[in-house]
């Protein structure tokens, strides 16, 4: 641990010379698939993430990202079938349904930059592994049902970093998000395609 710390400090202190760090903020748009689409089928335009990437060499970086995506759908005058607490009966409830999925992915990300640290466009492929906290909510009338769980999450991605000047760069990319189902499927298997557009601060 101590060794790691020393290595980290050395690398960090070197960073002004090697431009070895990136701080990244992205706006995200996300298209749901599969069971997520069944629940909230609209494309989400509410999402962002923040990431930090550290270059191990010219071509490889490791880092992490923390994000938030909101999916929403409104269904007017639909009949749904619900269970209530302490009661096994199924109730038919007709009304407006307001459905929400909020998901907060926390990923460790490894990236490979095909053209290394040079070029006006630096394409990369990456893989994010981690967890995502997902909350699923359905409101109908004066009733509301919420469930939230942690899901295991895998996120392959492709993208490009486009340097603007010494300090700033633009980031574009697309990430496929897959997460395992939780709570016996009450939190669905998560699939979405997320588009990133953002800026990078380089050091």
């Amino acid at each position, binding site marked *: 641990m101590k060794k790691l710390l020393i290595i980290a400090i050395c690398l960090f202190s070197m960073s002004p010379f090697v431009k070895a760090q990136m*701080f990244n*903020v992205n*706006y995200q748009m996300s298209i749901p698939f599969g069971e997520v689409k069944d629940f909230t089928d609209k494309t989400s*335009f*509410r*999402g*962002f993430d*923040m990431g930090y990437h550290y270059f191990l060499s010219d071509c490889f970086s490791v880092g992490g990202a923390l994000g*938030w995506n*909101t999916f*929403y759908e*409104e269904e007017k005058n639909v*009949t749904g079938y*619900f*269970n*209530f*607490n*302490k*009661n096994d*009966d*199924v*109730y*038919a*409830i*007709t*009304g*407006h349904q*307001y459905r*929400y999925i909020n998901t907060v992915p926390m990923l460790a990300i490894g990236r490979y930059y095909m053209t290394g640290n040079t070029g006006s466009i630096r394409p990369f492929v990456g893989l994010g592994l981690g967890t995502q906290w997902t909350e699923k909510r359905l*409101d*109908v*009338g*004066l*009733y*509301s*049902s*919420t*469930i939230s769980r942690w899901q295991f999450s895998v996120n392959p991605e492709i993208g490009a970093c486009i340097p603007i000047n010494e*300090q700033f760069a633009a980031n574009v990319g697309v990430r496929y998000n897959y997460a395992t189902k939780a709570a016996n499927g*009450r939190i669905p298997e998560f699939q979405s395609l997320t588009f990133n557009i953002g*800026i990078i*601060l380089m050091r």
Partner: protein
Amino acid sequence: MKRFLTLILAGLFAQLMVSCYPEGAEYVEDYDVAMTNYNKSADFSAFTTFAIPDSIVHFSNNEDATIDHQYDDQILKLVTENFVKKGYTLVDTTQKPSFIVTASAFSNVSYSYYMDNWYNNWNWYWGSSWWPGTNPFYPYYPWYPSTVYSYRSGSLIIDMISTTTREDNKVDVVWNGIADGLLQGSGVSILYRLEKQINQCFEQSPYLMK
């Protein structure tokens, strides 16, 4: 300076995210629902005749509330019409109807049902609060009435009770429909919304047919 800019940027992002978070229900009628439940083992075609009392039982937790019976006739008429449309015949109580229809109105968020079994035991008692925890209607995993504390909510409950005596002498509710919403706006507009939900209760119960 760079850090400051980053902070501002992050702040703006957060602001953007919060400000465009989806709203959900906007108008009073967006909260209206029609709920129905029935006894799966009941044979609805075996019922033929029904009787209905001439008033609605009102429940309110506010002792000072003046109970307004002015719409009772209209509501009961609508309920009767719906049952007639389903093929049942309205008779007088003296003619031994095969089921009885009751209508109860609850207002001001303080009703609590006691249901150890929905069909067998259909009692109510004056519970402490409608809000989460004590409400047996408190829905499954964890369903809870959403936070609309500043509003009054109201429900009209229509029960279809079989007159056939059960072995355990309990009331045999074979079907019920609940029109549920917020008591906001004029009496007429509430009545209009209520009527819509009452009709919906019957519409979503195709099994209820002579």
